[in-house]
């Protein structure tokens, strides 16, 4: 049955189509600027997925259009097709091959996840406070100074963000860092980022939090350690009492990223 199909030619078309789609798709930088050590790793995974997806898409499209071109009934032809009920080898193949592919994808993703969540001994901890509809930040290692609506971090140093939502769920996302984490009332969630490019970015709330959700943004500045120390030194305000209280009251349900030995 399969022997009657021009498999080699069809595969050649699939390969050419995969190459063409991948070439176009990979030439575009979908995710925008990469500004953290995690970003290129996630983007690489995405690019591998784009190539694999282009292949699957091309395979389906080529199979479909070949069938439509070759096996379309002539007008007035009322006869039936060939009574083929299946093909065990083919069915086993399209069960096992996708299984192997997705398990490869799972393994690859796991290793990326492991990489991007590795904790450095030397890191800066920043408290993130979110409430309808504003962000503010505390620097526990820096005398608990407090900044509203503007986050500054030093470049090339791992930052551990400890998130404390005050009312409803918010979500912390800096697209250039590729890192997102929900801020959940009652618990402390953690995100690990190592920014590696100087610049000004935007912190976006991505969890629906009410009518002000779309405008819940904050300015993010990644600067040299010296500039950062200068900026922190200039902060006069301390973390207000209710926010400081939320730090101690929150339970830490997400304490250990995967590689930290497990709970």
């Amino acid at each position, binding site marked *: 049955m399969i022997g009657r199909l021009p498999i080699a030619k069809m595969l050649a078309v699939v390969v050419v189509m995969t190459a063409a789609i991948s070439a176009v798709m990979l030439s575009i930088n979908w995710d925008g600027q990469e500004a953290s050590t995690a970003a290129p790793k996630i983007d690489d995974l995405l690019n591998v997925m784009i190539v694999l997806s282009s292949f699957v898409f091309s395979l389906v499209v080529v199979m479909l259009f070949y069938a439509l071109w070759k096996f379309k009934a002539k007008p007035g032809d009322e006869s039936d097709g060939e009574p083929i009920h299946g093909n065990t080898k083919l069915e086993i193949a399209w069960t096992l091959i996708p299984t192997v592919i997705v398990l490869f994808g799972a393994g690859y993703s796991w290793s990326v996840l492991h990489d991007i969540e590795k904790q450095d001994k030397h890191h800066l901890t920043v408290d993130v406070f979110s409430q309808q509809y504003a962000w503010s930040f505390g620097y526990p290692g820096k005398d608990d100074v407090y900044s509203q609506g503007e986050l500054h971090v030093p470049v090339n140093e791992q930052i551990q963000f400890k998130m404390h939502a005050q009312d409803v769920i918010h979500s912390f996302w800096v697209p250039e860092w590729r890192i997102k984490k929900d801020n959940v009332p009652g618990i402390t969630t953690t995100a690990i980022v190592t920014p590696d490019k100087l610049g000004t970015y935007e912190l976006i709330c991505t969890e629906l939090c*009410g009518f002000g959700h779309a405008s819940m943004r904050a300015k993010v500045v990644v600067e040299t350690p010296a500039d950062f120390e200068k900026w922190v030194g200039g902060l006069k305000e301390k973390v207000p009492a209710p926010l400081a209280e939320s730090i101690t009251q929150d339970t830490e349900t997400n304490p250990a990223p995967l590689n930290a030995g*497990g709970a």
Partner: protein
Amino acid sequence: MTAAIKQPGWIRGALGAILGAAFGFALVVAIRKASGLPATQTEQTGYPQVVVALITGPLGFLLGFGAFDYWLRWAVGMPTIPEDHSQHGAKSWKDYFRFNTDHKVIGIQYVCTTFFFFFIGGLLAMLIRAELAQPGTQIVDAATFNSLFSTHAAIMIFLFVIPVFAGLANYVLPLMIGAPDMAFPRLNALSFWMLPLAGLLFIGSFLAPGGAFDAGWTGYAPLSTGAPLGQSFFNLGVQFAGASSIATALNFLVTIITMRAPGMTFWRMPLLVWANLSTSLLVVAATPFIAGVQFMVLFDRALHTNFFQFAGGGDVVSYQHIFWFYSHPAVYIMMLPGFGIISEVISTHARKPIFGYRLMALALIGIVVLSYSVWAHHMFVAGMFSWLRVPMMITTLLIAVPTGIKIFSWLGTLYFGKIHTYSTAMLFALAFIVTFTIGGISGVMLGMVPIDIHVSDTYFIVAHIHFVLFGGSVFTIFAGVYHWFPKMTGRMYDEKLGRVHFWGTLFGTWVTFIPMHWIGMDGMPRRVADYASQFGTWNLLISCGAFILGAVQLVFLYNMIVSWRFGPKASGNPWRANSIEWQVSSPPPIFNFDEIPRVVGGPYEFGVPGARHAIMAGESVEAPAPAQATTVGSAQ
């Protein structure tokens, strides 16, 4: 007048609704008075006098409308009204507006009602896209915008995609398995009539103080527990839609398991029957979870319980666990019946047996089992325990395997067939294979934790769910409606208008939903009324695509209405299909079959010499062995 009040019907129903609501209101006021509280309570999350009335009002309507008459008479020991089948069949259009126990009438009631809500949900989508065509706020304010996308999603999910499949299966499935009706016709009718009540609650929430529910269809706590009264309308609407869904699933299970025609073994069931068996297994076990979790939210709101109030010791994340334990299987509840439809349409129009029938059925069961173990992939960034992410990622990716089996088997079915593309149903089925593949691919990407961390809660998600639910489910719904339109109405639809609808829908779907992937990856979050101006051009294009998509649905509406009234009469089997529903007249006789057919072979034996699926009453049965039968059934 007194006669009208005694008869079950609209007048008694309206009276029941008013009395029911008044009873609920009075009950709360009386209890509050007795407890020394003010008579009414109008904190934004409270309004117990309204909440209880919203439960008792619809129940009063159902009582008055006659949904419980038979059971109540039986329960209190009154002589039951002998079944004279007066509630069976429809003689005029008015019968579609009555409590009717005929599965064919109920099927049409379902399909028409759900398409009514499809157009309402579509209008809301048009408003959303109009607002998003330009950055900034032009048409609606941010709070109204939140209500718009929340009601759009709730209506499309709970009042269109899930129940329209129940409606199509209601009509077709008993015919397909050679049954005279569903197993529990009265329960079937009750299931249907709960549906418009759920719709009224969703739409009615726009009238509530504070506006319609606006916490998204996901209604995450604590945003939902603190939201204005409209949220309670959502909590309760889900109860009615959910109860309807569960009762129907139970009905399907019993019907499929016990009422198949003699000879129809499990391995001779059409794949649509397999699909509804799988779906019903999901619904009966999963839907109670969303019903439960919406009650918990309602209790937090109105009774000051602390399920999800962190300040009172509740756990915020557990809402999402319970919600997604239903709502991920719900994705398959919205997809598996469509898989069944595609199998019927493709096999019939390619004149070929389904490729790998048994593996196709097993793939459905595989999806059912796996779909219970993937819910937390909606929560990779939600702050749940981090070790839960990898196992859930693996099961999520594995579910692509049975789904892939289905895609490849449909393609295999086309090979060496005689493919006819004159039917709009077949066009939608073929296009479905491609668009659904895209939804599947983006689903695999989202299943990978690192990618999900970046794109979750962005427009990438919006693109993915619309490729799955619109490019997937809705395409299968159109395929199903076109395929069985001749059977259900006895008329043929206009294929030319069908083609306009098909190409417009395909074009609109791609233009609308493909660019959403890009703007999502590039940094546009979802559920925002306003966005950064860098996304302006793409959003304008998306809105144009959406308007085309919306406008072309009017062609469909026109085609359906006009063809139903004036279309050429349909023969019993216009597509030359094998399954039993096509072996009776169009529309089928009032009790489906004079005599239950006998099933003697598989449902897709195209091209097998002498093979046949079923022997109908009145056919010569001198050749009981399937291999010796010579004519392919075309009995009226």
